[in-house]
């Protein structure tokens, strides 16, 4: 079997899948820039670990969610301050759309949107987009040898994304605010500790990782998202000098929102109810990385990854992802 050795200029985590943000620390003076895109589409409504009907949702909420699509563009820069410590910064741009439905024949569409009324008087649409929170990390290479490394990351999420977006012309009632998931940021200063083990031996790389977000403070509206924990295990194999493939298992758990925004009426839809956040999800991903060795983009890679949920349990009622896909372009210097 032919072994492909990591080319000069690539960091140790160069085979990491598109959806993995942190895998390694850079050598002193090293730079890495990347553009990442995450796309998630949600459709079915679940309660606990099973689907529920729209009628069940309508019993407690005005609208039953029909679908939600979220795209997130992330620009990231990473620099090795020393052989042990790297810093990383990320800014994100979020775009979200969701549709909701009133019970058939209901007399509730109050905002007078004649365009949507002519199509379906009970269908209600929301969309938001804009810059989200800004994230900073310090990544410490705790242990490293020829074939493995352990890096510890300590991150801060700085609340630069807005949390007071209103629904404007599609408001159900005067001054209606977008539900929590449609806002651009968390509104809170959050801590993001993590630890990553990476093992690499020629063409084969594998890694396990634990990342958390600790939200200790309420935002100005009076709530904060629940703490979360993400566990990643992935393995990648390099088939040729320009191609590798990866598989990844991701476990995610999160608590519900604590507190609430008094401008968001929980009764409107599950996404406006703080209790309808958090839960557990296990997803599996398959990905491919394409490496560029020459020209302007030498030491760069293009990565794509497609994921499907294997297990989901949600708090109260939530829409669940049908699929997630990630793409990234990374250039190392």
């Amino acid at each position, binding site marked *: 079997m032919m072994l492909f050795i990591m080319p000069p200029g690539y960091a140790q985590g160069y085979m990491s899948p598109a959806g993995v943000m942190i895998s390694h620390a850079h050598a002193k003076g090293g730079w890495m820039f990347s553009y990442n895109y995450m796309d998630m589409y949600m459709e079915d409504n679940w309660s606990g670990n099973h689907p529920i009907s729209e009628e069940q949702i309508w*019993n407690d909420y*005005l609208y039953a969610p029909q679908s939600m699509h979220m795209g997130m563009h992330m620009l990231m820069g990473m620099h090795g301050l020393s052989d042990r410590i790297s810093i990383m910064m990320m800014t994100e741009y979020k775009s979200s759309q969701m549709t909701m439905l009133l019970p058939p024949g209901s007399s509730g569409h109050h905002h007078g949107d004649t365009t949507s009324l002519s199509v379906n008087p009970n269908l209600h649409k929301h969309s938001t987009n804009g810059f989200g929170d800004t994230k900073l990390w310090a990544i410490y290479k705790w242990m490293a040898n020829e074939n493995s490394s352990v890096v510890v990351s300590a991150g801060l999420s700085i609340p630069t994304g807005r949390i007071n977006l209103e629904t404007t012309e599609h408001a159900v009632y005067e001054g209606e605010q977008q539900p929590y998931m449609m806002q651009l940021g968390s509104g809170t200063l959050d801590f993001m500790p993590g630890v990553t083990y990476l093992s690499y031996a020629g063409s084969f790389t594998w890694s396990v990782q634990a990342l958390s977000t600790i939200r200790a403070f309420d935002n100005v509206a009076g709530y904060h998202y629940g703490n979360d924990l993400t566990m990643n295990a992935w393995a990648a194999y390099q088939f040729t000098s320009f191609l590798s493939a990866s598989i990844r298992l991701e476990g995610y758990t999160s608590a519900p929102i604590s507190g609430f925004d008094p401008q968001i009426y929980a009764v409107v839809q599950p996404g406006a109810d703080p209790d309808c956040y958090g839960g557990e999800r296990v997803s599996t991903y398959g990905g491919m990385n394409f490496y560029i060795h020459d020209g302007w983009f030498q030491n760069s890679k293009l990565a794509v990854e497609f994921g499907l949920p294997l297990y989901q349990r949600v708090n109260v009622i939530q829409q669940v992802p049908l699929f997630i896909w990630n793409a990234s372009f990374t250039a190392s210097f």
Partner: protein
Amino acid sequence: MRIPYLPAVLLASMFLIGFTACDDDDDPATSKGSVALHIHTFAGGNEVEAYGDTLLLGDDRKIVVNTAQLYLTNFRFIKLDDSEVQGPATVLFMKQGVEEYELGEVEAGNYKGLRFDVGLSDATNASTPDPNDPALFQSTMWFGSTAQPDGFVFVNFQGAIDTTLNANSNSLAPFAYKIGTNDNRVTITMPQENHTVVPDQLDVYHMKVDYAGLFNGIVLSNPNNLQMTTPAQNNSVLAEQLVTNIATLFSYE
């Protein structure tokens, strides 16, 4: 590799903090919307625009309405799972000529039905109304010159009607139905019609009350069937039929 213990302890502490803190004990924002009824007074499919007008019932029988008023109370809103949400404790005095009735605030939500009582609760029926109470201080809705001791009239429908079998007379006989007493309070469940009560918004139920329904099964040619004005008369075969007929009066517009 030697493990540096201080970073390990710090990291473990952060995860521990993250997953032992912040359970959500708060109540999310609750919200209410307003509900109003828009009710038209009808007699045999014709709207009673003014007292004294001569109208035709379905069989071309002539009728003149002089009084058409009733009490609606104990409003309940039926959710999609058939559970009930209690509405505001409003005593709604409905009469001809007034179409808008504010019920008050109701928990925001989706409702497939509306249920209410025609009549007053036992306690209210036994009470003496405050002169400042516009709903209950209505002498036309008392059996006597005061509300007590005889209680309130729940439905007061009066006028004159052609009592001939063939409904072809211009000579109309007066009728007066004063339906009351606790036993004759009737619960009405409106047909299914989905309504969404939105926070801070007004939702209006458009209804009509067709008083001619009270004549269903009543033999008009019998003069004894044209008058029921005392509490004692409210315990009779005629009263039984009239009370049964109350359920047929209400429909959505």
